[in-house]
């Protein structure tokens, strides 16, 4: 990864997205385990932002990354792209407040855990549900901005 990024620092914002699979809506067939074994790898990687899953319990504790890498930007996975209803705005705010124990507000980005349709023939969601999840994140961001400005 660093060979790809060498010389690009400061010229463009770069991120890495690591998840545990997004080919099925069945949580039991996707990979499970926290980010602890990847902390050293992330630390060495010259990326600005870590775009990580945290809506699914399979991803483990947010503090594992928060304690180790508070100087990076965090793309906080705060909605599950595979479920059929949008998360509540309150739950997204709550998750983001947890992130604020480690990161400054400027460094917190809100995103789903993964894409809504990584494999064209195996999309994990439908457009209206996806749009409702985006709207929930936008509403949460508005509350978070008013609380942190």
């Amino acid at each position, binding site marked *: 990864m660093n*060979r790809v990024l060498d010389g690009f620092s400061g010229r*463009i914002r770069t991120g890495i*997205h690591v998840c545990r*699979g997004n080919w099925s809506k069945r949580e039991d067939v996707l990979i499970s385990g926290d980010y602890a074994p990847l902390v050293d790898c992330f630390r060495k990687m010259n990326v600005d932002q870590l775009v990580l899953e945290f809506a699914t319990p399979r991803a483990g504790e947010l503090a594992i990354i928060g304690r180790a890498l508070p100087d990076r930007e965090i793309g906080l996975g705060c909605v599950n*792209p595979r479920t059929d209803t949008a998360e509540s705005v309150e739950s997204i705010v709550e998750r983001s407040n947890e992130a604020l124990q480690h990161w400054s507000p400027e460094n917190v980005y*809100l*995103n789903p855990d993964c894409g809504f349709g990584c494999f*064209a023939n195996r999309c994990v969601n439908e457009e209206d549900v996806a749009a409702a999840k985006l709207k929930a994140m*936008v509403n949460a961001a508005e509350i978070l901005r008013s609380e942190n400005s």
Partner: protein
Amino acid sequence: MFSVTQVGSWPRSPQLLAGLREKRMKRMSEQQFNELADNEIRRCVQLQLDAGVDIVVDGELRRDNFYSFIAEKVEGTQLMSLAEMLETVEDKAAFEEMLQTLDAPAYAIRNPTCVGKLRRRASLAAEDLRFIRTLTGKPVKTTLPGPYLLTRAMWVTSYSSGAYGDKPVMADDVVSILREELEELVDAGAEFVQFDEPVLTEVVHSGDDKRRTFM
């Protein structure tokens, strides 16, 4: 602060799925497909703007999947369904069992297998960035498959060893291709590029090969 964005991909409509299939079967021209995809991306971007997101994506709507799409852009590759790859893997029973256990559809998921010397013949994502720029002045996130994912997915020994001998040699060319693309993206004014490396969790959490996924 608290910029709202996406990881990249958006559900495909039935029309777009039909278009992707027709283009793959060479029954639809590149131009016809792009007109269809342009309209779908317009709608996808509008939905994001209506929702009020801060950083917009194009939904990867032109892509078959988030890494297989490079087969169209890189010389020396061949798009293969997992069912076709089944013919080449040594332990067919294990591969088939893995697909079933993981609930992964063998015909619907395709892989960009390396079958010759790799060379970037078209931009991977910069052209898509130029299009979405015509739709919104908001910042855009561009997504690319990471070097580890690509190297691991593209290398299928029986097809790839003729051109490269060994996987790390092919990886050098994967790195060069991604660097060329980054350079073009910077020139095109990209503000945010995200590399997708989903398999990293598998490396640390699988323990043994029993849980190796198809990527």
